């Protein structure tokens, strides 16, 4: 149990996926203008990463390892993830229309989100069991959601600030993200 708690806190806060590993930077910077859309993106990411870390974990343990072809992991994982995202999208569109209406637009954007592949590869690298892999995926995605919602909140407050013209837009957002990264460095004091 203790190990699971360590994974949950470690992956969501201490080594935050965006602010210290730079994975999933595109949606982090692109979809953080409003808190509502940021929340939608965050929930979609939690959904996809949790499912994909389960599926890739199962495939790795029961297909790639027994056949001795674990070196094919990158190719297999990226195809599984891309197909999975499309499949989830079709499934939601057909059977869970309300969820599709709120998450649908974000799903195609996640296909090549490097955080999804990053989690699958980290699970293999750290030799996590399937349960721990899912916990790691869930925690990573929660970390992503926390940071994107925080950034969106800050951006909403700063939207009408008077700042020099070249700094408007991305540079300004990146500076904010840098300050957030400093704040998140504080979590590295927590150790298990």
């Amino acid at each position, binding site marked *: 149990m203790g190990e699971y708690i360590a994974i949950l806190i470690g992956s969501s806060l201490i080594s935050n996926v965006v*602010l*210290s*590993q*730079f*994975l*999933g*930077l*595109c*949606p982090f*910077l*692109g*979809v953080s203008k409003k808190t509502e859309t940021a929340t939608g993106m965050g929930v979609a990411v939690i959904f996809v990463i949790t499912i994909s870390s389960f599926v890739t974990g199962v495939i790795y343990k029961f297909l790639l390892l027994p056949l001795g072809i674990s*070196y*094919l*992991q*990158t*190719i297999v994982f*990226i*195809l599984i993830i*891309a*197909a999975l*995202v*499309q499949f989830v999208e079709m499934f939601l569109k057909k059977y869970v229309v309300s969820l599709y209406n709120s998450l649908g637009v974000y799903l*195609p*954007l996640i*296909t*090549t*989100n*490097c955080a999804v*592949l*990053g989690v699958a*590869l*980290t699970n293999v*690298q750290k030799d996590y069991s399937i349960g721990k892999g899912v916990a790691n995926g869930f925690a990573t995605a929660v970390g992503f959601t926390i940071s994107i919602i925080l950034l969106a909140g800050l951006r909403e407050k700063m939207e009408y600030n008077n700042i020099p*013209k*070249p*700094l*408007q*837009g*991305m*540079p*300004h957002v*990146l*500076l904010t*993200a*840098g*300050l957030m*990264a*400093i704040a998140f*460095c504080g979590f590295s004091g927590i150790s298990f």
Partner: protein
Amino acid sequence: MNKPVERLYNGILKENPTFVLTLGMCPTLAVTTSAINGLGMGLSTMVVLALSNLLIAALRNFIPNRVRIPAFIVIVASFVTVTQLLLQGFVPVLYESLGIYIPLIVVNCIILGRAESYASKNPMIPSLFDGIGMGLGFTMALTMIGLVREILGSGQAFGFRILPDSYVPISIFIMAPGAFFVLATLTAIQNKIKIEGEKKGKDMSKIQSGCMSDCASCGDTGCAHRFYDENAKPGPVGKADAKADTAAKTVETVSEGKEETK
């Protein structure tokens, strides 16, 4: 200028993936803690980019348009796996320090973007040189960013101490927040050049924020494509309505800007 030279020039200066198009930011920020790491990452990406461009261009008349994205992904992922195994075997130090970012070359926007916008519509030789040019541009940018961060953050360049001992390194520059600050400065300079160029009435539309301004714009560069494209026309990729090589049409405004960025 003949085609290969034009493609190299285009990739390194006119459409530099990092400084002009602002693509592939995840690896750019993550591995540029030192100049050597930036160089290693850039060269690995260049190899993958050049080889996958070559193969995609060779197969462009056989890949059905509807499943082109999965086909491109398989090709790119195969070359990434080959590169990863070679690095693990011959340059284990670099392999250790780049870690998970080597397999993540697969999802680098630059690679799928070039496959989609250039290699799938052009013959093999120009595509190969397009990949090499873009890869060199990326390598150069990563090495430069790595160098700046290494000098500021540890007073070293390529592992050799170059600043006097009285210089106290600003170690935050080799940590995660420093990456954001360096990129913020870079985009600010980019904005400045763009604003001034527009004042003079030049076409600066090539300078863009890549994936960063709005995720919807990723569609053009290959980031946000659907796995199976229902709306695509059936038939081979190369025969789909090929866009003219936009690079040739753009005004040579960017090369001026590059001097200031350096």
